[in-house]
């Protein structure tokens, strides 16, 4: 069924095609690894480091083989020192390297906030353009199997809030490769947000290097009744919701913003103008989150024109619990997304919740990890 989902993503497949080159089916993990490998080959200034990038598990496989190929000076694990290692990455970038700093958990970025917010984001500006910080920070959002309070957060909105940072959250192997190459070549700090469940995704990926640049969101499933924006892992749940909604004759236009900063709001606005209904589903909390920003921008753009109905879905406004029953209530899922989109379109509570369909089941992320 992963295939189904992937095949659904017309434009991504097309995109791959148009990229011309030979295309294979790769996992998200392999797409990330290939992008890194190709850029390190192309540009000796690219280095990759972070806790455990060189250990036997090599970050879910995303750094596999790099140490052997590029050596311990360009590929190295670090001490448990997120704050200073972020500062090291910034200093190295100022000196002309293009570091990729990897964090196995986005939650750990809270230790790097001072260097990211006060130094990386501000150096180009506060030094009057005298320096640049070509830095990529990879971090992974965890989910399921008791990840719990401190291993589950999607904190991308923090970085969207700060001028000077770019933020990208690819959801397909195709975009994982293209966005990472784009991020590495960008002369500014880019927060590259992964999700551990998306790592299992498979999809078409061209062999040759290519970039997926900011400025273009992707319509991953066409529709006319409601615009469904899914961020990070929630893109998958939205595509599933798209299938559930068909049962009610509702076609949801599913959009993947891909780049959250800069954000392609036009594509979302045009879709919302067409469907008259907008539901933004984030893999994070809604308050002051990406969903608040997208909804606010759409309304700013569409006010005056016939009322667009809007809705935000995201984490429950609580800390993430570990026990499965509570955890599944903590996250939006395809069926609940479909249910509330149906209510949104109908303009009232319809009390419909689709029965779970095996052909749309989620892949479960199983520990130990």
């Amino acid at each position, binding site marked *: 069924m992963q295939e189904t989902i992937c095949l659904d993503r017309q434009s991504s497949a097309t995109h791959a095609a148009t990229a011309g080159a030979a295309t294979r089916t790769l996992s998200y993990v392999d797409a990330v690894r290939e992008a890194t490998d190709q850029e390190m080959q192309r540009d000796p200034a690219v280095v990759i480091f972070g*806790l*455990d990038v*060189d*250990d*036997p*598990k090599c970050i879910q496989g995303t750094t596999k083989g790099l140490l052997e190929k590029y050596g311990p000076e360009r590929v190295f*694990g*670090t*001490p*448990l*020192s*997120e*704050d*200073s290692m972020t500062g090291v990455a910034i200093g190295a970038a100022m000196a002309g390297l293009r570091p990729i700093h990897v964090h196995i958990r986005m*939650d*750990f970025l*809270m*230790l790097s906030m001072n260097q990211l917010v006060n130094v990386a984001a501000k150096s180009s500006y506060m030094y009057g353009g005298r320096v640049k910080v070509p830095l990529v920070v990879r971090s992974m959002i965890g989910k399921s*199997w*008791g*990840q*719990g*309070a*401190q*291993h589950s957060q999607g904190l991308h909105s923090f970085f969207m809030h700060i001028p000077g940072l770019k933020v990208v959250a690819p959801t397909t192997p195709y975009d994982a490769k293209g966005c990472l190459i784009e991020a590495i070549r960008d002369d500014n700090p880019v927060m590259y947000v992964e999700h551990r469940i998306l790592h299992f995704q498979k999809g078409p990926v061209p062999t040759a290097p290519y970039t997926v640049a900011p400025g273009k969101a992707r319509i991953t499933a066409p529709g006319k009744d409601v615009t469904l924006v899914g961020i990070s892992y929630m893109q998958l749940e939205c595509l599933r919701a798209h299938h559930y909604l068909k049962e009610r004759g509702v076609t949801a236009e599913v959009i993947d913003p891909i780049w959250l900063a800069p954000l392609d709001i036009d594509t979302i606005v045009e879709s919302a103008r067409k469907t008259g209904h907008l539901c933004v589903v984030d893999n994070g909390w809604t308050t002051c989150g990406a969903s608040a920003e997208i909804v606010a921008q759409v309304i700013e753009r569409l006010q005056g024109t016939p009322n667009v109905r809007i809705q935000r879905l995201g984490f*429950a*406004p*609580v*800390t993430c*619990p*570990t*026990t*499965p*029953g*509570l955890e599944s*209530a*903590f996250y939006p899922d395809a069926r609940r997304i479909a249910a509330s989109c149906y209510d949104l379109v109908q303009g009232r509570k319809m009390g419909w919740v689709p029965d779970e369909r095996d052909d749309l089941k989620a892949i479960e992320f199983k*520990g*130990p*990890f």
Partner: protein
Amino acid sequence: MHEQFYHSLYRIRRVEEELARNYPTDKIKSPVHLSIGQEAVSVAVCQALRPEDVVFGTYRGHAMYLAKGGNLKAMVAEMYGKATGCTKGKGGSMHLIDTDAGVMGTSAVVGTTIANAVGCAYAMKLRGSQGVVASFFGDGASEEGVFYESLNFAVLKKLPVLFVCENNGYAIHTHQTLRQGVAKIHERAKSFGMSAELIEDNDCLALHEHVTTAVKALRGGKATGPFFFECRTSRWREHVGPNEDFHLGYRSKQDLQPWVDNDQVVRIAKLLPPAKRAQIEAAVEAEVQEAFAFADASPFPPESELYTDVFHHQVPAPLLKKVA
């Protein structure tokens, strides 16, 4: 005294072996970081503490939790994600707590509880309590800035803290020498101005003696804190999960063998008369089976629990007597 040591050591070992055995079934609902091989450190330290003393630890906290007297049923139930768990199924294995037993918390973010332990010690000192606080953390945690900042503050304020570094030589699969320019954590601690000792060989009784001396001095007012103990030890299983991990190649069976040969559970067992030993083991087996049965039989929390505990209910601000 050897009886208590053995009871505590054997109990921790057996509980974790049972957890490992249960792992393949889907009963355990969160990642488990076993202490098998490291029990001696927690037991040696906690045997020197009183119930009113406090400990803070890490996601690898089963041994500390049990050694300090944490409720076993509540621990296993927590692993099973049950409402009877020590955090009602909300925290899982990485956030064990039992405030009644002075287990004040364990964290999945490396290094965080070191500062929390120091703050707790500050509060206890301010309140004139005789209690001491033990902060458990790994060799990897000693690379986080918060570790050094916390040492400095503890020395500056002369706080009754025991810093207990469980140095098992690895952070996940990376050896200490690949992460630290000089692999002498206790030397760094010393440079902050505190007494710092290295206990080389996971020796439960030797460590216990050192800690007892320190705690006595603290309580008697003959010394001020903090004290630092770098305890060499070894994790026998994989970083997270129930299995061995020699296949990964970052360490070999031979590397581990000396530690296994020096197993403190076996060592202390030998110091007991066989009858006594059998009696302890029987008691532990019964308790362990009971705990797992309890966890099995316990209900999962109702969905309404999702929204509780985000904020703590208002109660009047405690006055000093309440606090003390």
